[in-house]
């Protein structure tokens, strides 16, 4: 019995690059052993800085990118080894929302044509769904004959959400879907995501770099650092009482309204680290044990997992 819409297990991605003509093979581990579940009707936030591997995880979860190792299970079905042909049949269950609203809609098609594409793939002839979905994302139905160039960023993002919804997916993967939007429009689209979860029972993997934005939409939040998922917890737990020093540092660094600049975090005693915890070189709580291995994600509280050896730490949150 599995209630998760999406569950990924030990997902890894390693890029192999040969440096130079006869150089040594260099491995870049973009994602390491990431595991999480997205429950039905749940929004799981995935937050991390650039290069943390959060986008790679999203693409691998959708099987738009092949994982080096690990498993992707969609609604109880293991789709890790599905061929492209077999994948096509299950693709509609999960849809992707992109960051750049100007690139996500085909500039040479009308909105009508763009929104018909998902219906045609589902074998539906009527336009009834289009009208209903446009209403759902807050767009008026008289825009069907326009082209994407005539819309603002926020409107295009609504349209790409509408296109995704027309596939009747169980899961949306929103990859930095509101990062390119101005704050007021961003708030509107954030509200739309929450609304869709509430009204349609949609599950969403919400990927972003802004803690506050990810926090405000998500039921649970996972934090990634250099390819490793270092902490996962219910949003309020994670923000109030982070258990991984990186999460704490991220929370401290985020600027806040009416608050002074946070102080510089104390530097680590050791600057070298290889093979140990990914965060050790920047961690002010590092011990020699941290250099020995990368700890696995483990239960540190109710529905709260952290990948830090020093489970006794009392870290301050918001």
């Amino acid at each position, binding site marked *: 019995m599995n209630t998760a819409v999406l569950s990924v297990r030990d997902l890894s991605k390693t890029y192999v690059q040969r440096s130079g003509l006869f150089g040594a093979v260099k491995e870049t581990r973009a994602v390491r052993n990431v595991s999480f579940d997205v429950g039905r009707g749940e929004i799981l936030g995935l937050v991390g800085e650039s290069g943390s591997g959060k986008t790679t995880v999203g693409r691998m979860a*959708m099987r*738009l990118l092949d994982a080096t190792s690990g498993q992707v299970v969609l609604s109880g079905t293991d789709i890790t080894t599905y061929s492209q042909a077999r*994948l*096509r*049949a*299950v*693709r*509609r269950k*999960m*849809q*992707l929302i*992109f960051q*750049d609203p100007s*690139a*996500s*809609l*085909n*500039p*040479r*098609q*009308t909105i009508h*044509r763009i929104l018909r*594409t*998902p219906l045609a*793939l589902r074998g539906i002839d009527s336009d009834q769904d289009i009208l209903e979905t446009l209403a759902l994302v807050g767009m008026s139905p008289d825009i069907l004959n326009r082209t994407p160039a005539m819309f603002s960023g926020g409107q295009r993002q609504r349209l*790409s959400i509408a*296109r*995704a919804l027309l*596939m009747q997916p169980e899961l949306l993967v929103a990859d930095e879907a509101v990062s390119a939007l101005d704050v007021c429009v961003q708030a509107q689209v954030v509200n739309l995501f929450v609304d869709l979860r509430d009204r349609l029972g949609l599950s969403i993997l919400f990927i972003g770099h802004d803690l506050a934005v990810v926090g405000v939409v998500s039921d649970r939040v996972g934090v990634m650092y250099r390819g490793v998922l270092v902490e996962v917890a219910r949003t309020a737990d994670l923000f109030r009482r982070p258990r991984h020093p990186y999460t704490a540092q991220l929370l401290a660094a985020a600027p806040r309204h009416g608050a002074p600049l946070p102080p510089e975090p104390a530097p680590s005693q050791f600057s070298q680290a290889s093979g140990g915890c990914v965060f050790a070189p920047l961690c002010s709580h590092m011990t020699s044990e941290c250099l020995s291995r990368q700890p696995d994600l483990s239960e540190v509280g109710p529905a709260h997992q952290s990948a830090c050896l020093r489970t006794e730490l009392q870290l301050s949150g918001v």
Partner: protein
Amino acid sequence: MTVQLPSVLRRLLAHPRGMVPTLYVPTIIVLCGLGPWLLPFGELHVDLYHRFLPPLGNGHLLGTDEIGRDVLSRVLMGGRVSLLVGLVSTAISTLIGTTVGIVAGYHAGLARFLITTVIDAVLCFPVVFLLLTLAAVLHPGIGTIIGIITLVSWMEVARVAQSQTRIVRRQDYVTAVVAMGAGDAQVLFREILPNILPAIIVSATLNIARAILLESYVSYLGYGIQPPDASWGNLLNNAQEYLESDPWLAIIPGAVIVLTVVMFNLLGDALRDAIDPSRRSS
């Protein structure tokens, strides 16, 4: 609804740099197509009593040549051949180039590797040498000329199609359709092709200009269209002999070539701007 034709045409005509070639190109095609029937002299009509007439002489608007043939008729008749060579070879090479380019752009891997490296390498060779060698050893005629010009022209189109396909394929809107479970055919023909078509149309227009020019080189050097058939190139073939006494025999057909090639090049340039107006604002 792929390329919005009326708006492209409107933008083309809005600027003299677009308007002039847009009007010229169909005009010259129609003139060369109908010309011989409109004129009083057949292009092969020899009149030894009226040789080397200067322009406007005795009813000959552009004069007569060394055996008294009407130059205007020969220019129009030559235009039929030159334009035919330009248009047909471009049509074939665009078709080949686009197909090869899309295949190489869409499928990463060995096919792309082979096609791109071969194209890059071939483009390095001096084309006219190859062209002339082929023309010299093969049986001369329109078909041969069209064939060898096609042979050296399709790579340029293929390169454009390849790089455009790669760019478009990476766009989010294509990924979105892939994520919906669309098949290769749908992705290629409905999402990618309409978006690379403008670049290919532009490339084809520039290719017509190049093909006309190449034909004129080969025919001028005597390996192309053979007299008494006329082409814009071979009209100049022996004009150099009469350069001192009767310069118009060299200047007029040459000027027509230049004008036409300039117009096709201008049209290609203007089309590029008209199809993608954001380019011009830079």
